[in-house]
């Protein structure tokens, strides 16, 4: 990249299962806590921040530029412009990448980027037919019109229209898409359950050692101010036997994806602080990592919806001339255990490499001893808009803890997108 851009630190709220303690909040407040936590942690003067970019998926109409509300309430001055971006599960990665590009293009020197998701406060609306009636109702005149409107209403009109986590173009849920993927890439149920159990066990260990704590700020909410300090999705006692008992969730007949080996709906916010290396020096801040490069990819929506990590990894390795063995830390977003195993199979497959990636041989077999060692989205949780910032922070922190040099992170997203980023430990 044309400028040396560094990652100073990241901060996130504890990730909570949907419907938990964050249920009374709006999503911007989760962003507020994450950004405020980041400011307090790094000690940076909020006036130094030139731009705020936040990702989100389920946006709230009242706070459609959620980055702005989050930044203002976190004490970032109004003179700092803020933008909200959306790219499904890699929204925060997109936010961070946009921040990098703002810095590279000279628009900003210091950027706060990240994302928020409050699935407990998804805007539940009316179905199209009712929305049309209500829209017309704004122009009602007189008693006659009002009565006409009242009589036009049907009981069915009042049924809420919940936002569905489904591809708009194919109308398949992500679980259904992942079922296609595991069939095509030959991943069986046992492998999925084993990986899910691994994720929970590793996360539990990381929590015990305080690694996850370090990424977090405490949240306490009025009026009781009970302190929330931990992710609540991690189940340390999860094992393959227990997971094997669960029924398939998306394809009841032939499926292998269950609630236990899929990520759950999660609420949370996360943010990172990035800037040029010179700026960090002049502010006296100690960067944790340098951002080496990043890529975004797009795949077929028919049968490759969640293969983003494979495509993005392949592309970023080509772009930087690096290979899997160069990395000491690898962090992939775990949407489903099946999705991870399918991607690992694709990366290890010579055939896939030739047919789809334009490579002679496979990218390589994943070194599991470097892979998602502090758990992942399956166990920690996956607030759509925020996960990307967690991945970046975890990668950097792991590099330091494990004394590694290069770290790779990758993620898939609805809409069949992929993202990968490389960090270098400069601490």
């Amino acid at each position, binding site marked *: 990249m044309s400028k040396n851009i560094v990652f100073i630190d990241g901060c996130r709220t504890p990730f909570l299962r949907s419907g938990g303690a964050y249920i009374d909040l709006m999503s911007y407040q989760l962003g507020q806590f994450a950004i405020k936590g980041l400011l307090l942690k790094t000690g940076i003067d909020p006036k130094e921040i030139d731009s705020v970019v936040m990702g989100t998926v389920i946006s709230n109409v009242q706070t459609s530029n959620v980055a702005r509300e989050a930044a*203002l309430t976190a*004490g970032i001055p109004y003179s700092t412009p803020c933008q909200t971006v959306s790219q499904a599960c890699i929204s925060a990665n997109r936010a961070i990448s946009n921040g990098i590009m703002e810095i590279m293009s000279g628009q900003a020197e210091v950027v706060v980027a990240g994302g928020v998701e409050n699935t407990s406060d998804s805007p539940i609306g009316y179905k199209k037919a009712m929305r049309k009636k209500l829209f017309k109702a704004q122009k009602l005149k007189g008693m006659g019109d009002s009565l006409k409107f009242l009589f036009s209403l049907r009981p069915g009109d009042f049924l809420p229209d919940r936002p569905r986590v489904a591809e708009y173009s194919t109308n398949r849920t992500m679980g259904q898409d992942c079922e296609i993927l595991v069939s095509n890439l030959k991943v069986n149920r046992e492998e999925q359950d084993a990986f899910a159990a691994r994720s929970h066990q590793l996360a539990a260990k990381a929590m015990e050692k305080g690694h996850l704590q370090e990424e977090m700020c405490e949240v306490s909410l009025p009026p009781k101010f009970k*302190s929330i300090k931990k992710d609540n999705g991690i189940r340390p006692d999860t094992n393959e036997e227990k997971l094997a008992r669960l029924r398939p969730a998306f394809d009841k007949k032939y499926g292998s994806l269950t609630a236990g080996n899929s990520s759950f709906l999660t609420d949370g916010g996360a943010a990172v602080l990035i800037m040029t290396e010179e700026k960090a020096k002049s502010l006296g801040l100690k960067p944790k990592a340098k951002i080496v490069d990043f890529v975004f990819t797009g795949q077929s929506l028919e049968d490759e919806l969640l293969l983003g990590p494979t495509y993005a990894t392949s592309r970023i390795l080509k772009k930087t001339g690096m290979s899997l063995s160069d990395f000491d830390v690898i962090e992939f977003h775990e949407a489903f255990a099946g999705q991870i195993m399918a991607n690992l199979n694709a990366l290890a497959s010579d055939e896939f490499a030739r047919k789809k990636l334009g490579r002679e041989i496979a990218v390589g077999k994943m070194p599991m001893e470097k892979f998602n060692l502090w758990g992942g989205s399956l166990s920690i949780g996956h607030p759509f808009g925020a996960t990307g910032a967690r991945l970046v922070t975890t990668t950097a922190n792991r590099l330091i803890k494990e004394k590694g040099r290069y770290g790779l992170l990758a993620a898939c997203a609805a809409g069949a997108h992929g993202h990968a980023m490389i960090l270098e430990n400069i601490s």
Partner: protein
Amino acid sequence: MTKQDYYTITKKDGVATIWLDQKGEKVNKVGPEVVGLFEDLADSLENDPEVKAAVLISKKKDFIAGADIDSFLEVKKPGDWKPITQKGHQILDRMANSKIPVVAAIHGAALGAGLEIALACAGRVASSDPSTKMAFPEVQLGILPGGAGTQRAPRLVGLQKALDMMLTGRNIFSVPAKKMGLVDELVHPSKLHQAASKLALRIAEGKFKRKRKQKLLDKFLDGTALGRSIVIRTARKKTQAMTKGNYPAVPRIIDCVETGLKKGMKVGLEAEATKFEELLLTKASRALISLFFGMTDKKKNPYSDKAKKIDYLAMVGAGFMGAGITEVSITKDIDVLLKDIKDETITSAKKLIWKSLKKKVRRKALRKTQAEEIMGNVKGQLDYSDFDNVDIIIEAVFEAVGLKQKVLAECEAVTHDKCIFASNTSALPIGKIAAKAKRPELVIGMHYFSPVPKMPLLEIVKTPKTADWVVASCFELGIRQGKTCIVVNDAPGFYTTRILAAFMNEALLMLEEGADALQLDSAMKKWGFPVGPITLMDEVGIDVGAHIAKGDITEAFMQREGAKSTDVMVKLFEAGFHGRKNKKGFFQYDSKTGKKKRGQINNEVYQFFGGSSRKKLEDEYIQNRLGFTMINEAVRCLEDGVLESAQDGDIGAVFGLGFPPFTGGPFLHLDTIGADKAVAILNSLKEKYGARFNPCNLLQEKAKSGEKFRNF
């Protein structure tokens, strides 16, 4: 001063706008020389064929901040001020009866005379801005609203509301002002001029009628002769009980209002003019004005050029004090790491702060999102993480030197080398806390008073090693937190705790001699303290008292000739008496509600003071013995160099300890009564009780030379 130095007039569409903009001042003020500038205003408006209506508006950020208080100090004898009041009345009357209606457009503060001018207008429009506030602060200066306020306010908002405003001096913000009828309309500041012009024209065209919505009871109390007499009688009784007759302004305000309502405005105005001047010549008013100037003075940092800005604070100890210091910081946009050893303590601190913020939201002084943002400025934690980022640490842990030294050492290990360490101790010498510090130049005392959000004083304690920039920065922080700061030198008990300890010790000795606890309280309340010494001991806590009794102050006292102290507090504490904290103290507490039973002494306590038979004493004797013990100690603090000025001593005693405000503080009080009189009182006490009542050298010197302590 010419008219152009105070206001200019523009005309548009039949409306003349009078733009107030006092030359060379930050705010518009009303002084004797200003009054005349408005003399022919009504005439000139009426004689201008272009003008149908007028608007009075300020170009500054406030409407009119009030009277020019400096000019009050010039008044020495009867007749010096009354003509000014009368001329003011005349001009306001002329404006009120002008054929051209004038509408006041109020943005920012409209206080005292400023509000009275607005009341003399035909109508009032206020901006909805949070900075807009109206009040009659005169009572706080020992005077009364002398611009016809005692007459026009009850006629506009009713007797009850008007008395409340004039007797408390409290601020009325825009929304309640509209509700009570003090203003006719509320608009966004950007539309203020437009709305006022329109209202003025409507009044000119006779299209405006003021409607008042009142509850039936209020209609009776405000609107009938019987109701009014009940209100007046109740007001007199209640205020007499509170002021004990020490604040002459209070009954006189009620007098003026009553006269006006019974005998008409003209007689009421005459009463107002007479009594205003009378009050201006009282000692109480002069003392209160001195406090006003002192407070204004202490809001300016004398060391500001050396101050470093503090935006990030760590609070160690989340108890009641810690919570209070956190609250006054986060509301001023200072980030706070709130550390404690228990999660529950942090949680209750946050609840306490939230309760106070919610009150502001309810009063519409804050938006909900602002309250949430403020709450976001505090982060609770059990460890020292992120302490490397903070500019200052304030500790409010248990009062023990060893513990405080340990906290200091732990902090020094994690902070950067320019991080200030402030102790909120009330009695421990800062030098002792700093004894093992690696960087003693960064150690200072910041003595806040409980409850922190309400108590205005901050006593900053420096040691010989404390760096100047550290003092300067803490002063700046104190001002930002809304405190009035005094800087004193380190010594056992500093200033406030030391003079209080001497006072309390004497009160306990009197109890041992057989005095009645309730009488001690009531005598000192009559003398002007807001609470008596015995109540105070229960409130502060017998544990704290015991701690002080064992501590450095007592040790220092005991080295003096004829010193006498008592360890009864220690005995009480060891017997399980802690005061209000554990509902076991000098007073009885309701076993269910835990509330103090008023006027009911816990007779068990008397066992520690030689039994329950008590003897009646002269109030004056109690007041002299306790009051002059405190005053003598205060002078000794000035003599020792603990205090750097007598003014600091007055501010500290009044705002920190509730020393009778109408005296202006111990030093101004000495100036008023004469140091020789104080020496005489102390000498007579000395004869009876020994050398501890020795008038200190400085006091004797002043008594001899007749010099004053204060140059006021």
